[in-house]
């Protein structure tokens, strides 16, 4: 049997992952290193925003306290967000943005493959839809890792620095806690620790093709985002994302 509070907590994670990365990618709008990349970043952001709306709308329905997708996105404080720390990390240089995307896309594709057979039909249909989009995201970010890794000396160095810098944020995606285990036990979710081997194998293969080194899988990993303990970057990001609704509550256009 699924418990509504556990499901709500689980959906917030899925929605917040998509929302926070979407907002980060949106920050690139008009500033991409090339027109094609600018379009790609904002298109991926748009897919993720659509997915965030689907997850958060469902979460709001379960909460049943008058919340909706907008109040969840615009009126929660940083400590109420449940995204993984990786996704709130600043855009940095282009290598940082590409590597962050690649680490997440590879996890996201695996996660959605699990969720599309969720025993909660609503979760299954959202995941099935999102997976088609995420497959394309993964194809693009994998190609970029190879092209920039196996590129010039400058691009290679920046890519390796980004891989090393973001690596300690990758482990949280596979860190199972009570919310995950309740989801797995009830059949609407999965145990994320089970995805790690497959993720590592794929990431290793793509990094190697891009002449990049995989950092130690045994390295110490940051965590806490899924429980609401975030890096300072999230508050700053939200202050921009939420300012309109915070300054003019209920504003519409």
């Amino acid at each position, binding site marked *: 049997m699924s418990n509504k509070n556990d499901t709500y907590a689980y959906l917030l994670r899925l929605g917040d992952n998509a929302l926070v990365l979407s907002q980060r990618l949106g920050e690139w709008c008009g500033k991409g290193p090339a027109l094609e990349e600018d*379009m790609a970043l904002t*298109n991926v952001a748009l897919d993720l925003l659509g997915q965030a709306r689907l997850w958060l709308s469902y979460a709001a329905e379960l909460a049943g306290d008058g919340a909706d997708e907008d109040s969840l996105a615009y009126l929660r404080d940083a400590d109420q967000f449940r995204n993984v720390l990786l996704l709130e990390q600043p855009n940095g240089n282009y290598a940082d943005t590409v590597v962050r995307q690649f680490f997440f896309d590879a996890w996201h594709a695996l996660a959605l493959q699990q969720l599309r057979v969720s025993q909660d039909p609503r979760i299954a249909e959202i995941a*099935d839809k999102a997976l088609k989009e995420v497959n394309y995201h993964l*194809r693009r970010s*994998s190609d970029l890792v190879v092209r920039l890794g196996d590129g010039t000396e400058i691009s290679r160095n920046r890519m390796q620095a980004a891989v090393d810098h973001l690596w300690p944020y990758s482990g949280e995606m596979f860190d199972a806690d009570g919310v995950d285990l309740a989801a797995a036990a009830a059949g609407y979710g999965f145990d994320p620790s089970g995805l790690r081997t497959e993720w590592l194998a*794929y990431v290793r293969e793509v990094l190697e093709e891009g002449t990049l080194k995989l950092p130690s899988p045994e390295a110490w990993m940051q965590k806490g985002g899924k429980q609401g303990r975030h890096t300072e970057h999230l508050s700053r990001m939200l202050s921009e994302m939420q300012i309109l609704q915070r300054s003019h509550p209920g504003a519409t256009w």
Partner: protein
Amino acid sequence: MSALSARASIDTIWSWLRQVPDPEIPVISVVDLGIVRDVRWDGQDADADVVITVTPTYSGCPATEVIAASIRDRLAEEGIGHARVETRLSPAWTTDWIGPEAKEKLRGYGIAPPACAAGEHVIDISRLTRRSAMKPAPLIACPRCGSTHTQVLSPFGSTPCKSLHRCHACHETFDYFKPH
């Protein structure tokens, strides 16, 4: 009984919907695009709602809301004020639902239609190995001159459903409707 005979048949409503253009690609209709999944009357009464079930193309496609409004407007022109547009996610929309006639309309409009079935050219991460998991990209013919000597310029184009390509034969750039 009179209410039943007076109201439009489901077939007639479909024919009206075939006149509702896609807001981004007006050469094809929302029916051509495959996003209208069902049309029904909700009840037997004279004031029953028409329910149009649509499925979004991409999760975040901003055209989805415009499409719902266009459908309601078109039905209002026929005197149907009670039209509800409902969203259904499953089964997820696929370009496989775009028929051969609609594909030719796309080509005539300058957009290369999907060159293969959906899902044929994606990474299957569950098979782990990247190279073997990637089927070779299908040849994409230029919608203007027909040459398949073309190249991807950008995996994303002017809308979420398209990518941007260049033809080496006639030197034109063109949009490609991505298999999805």
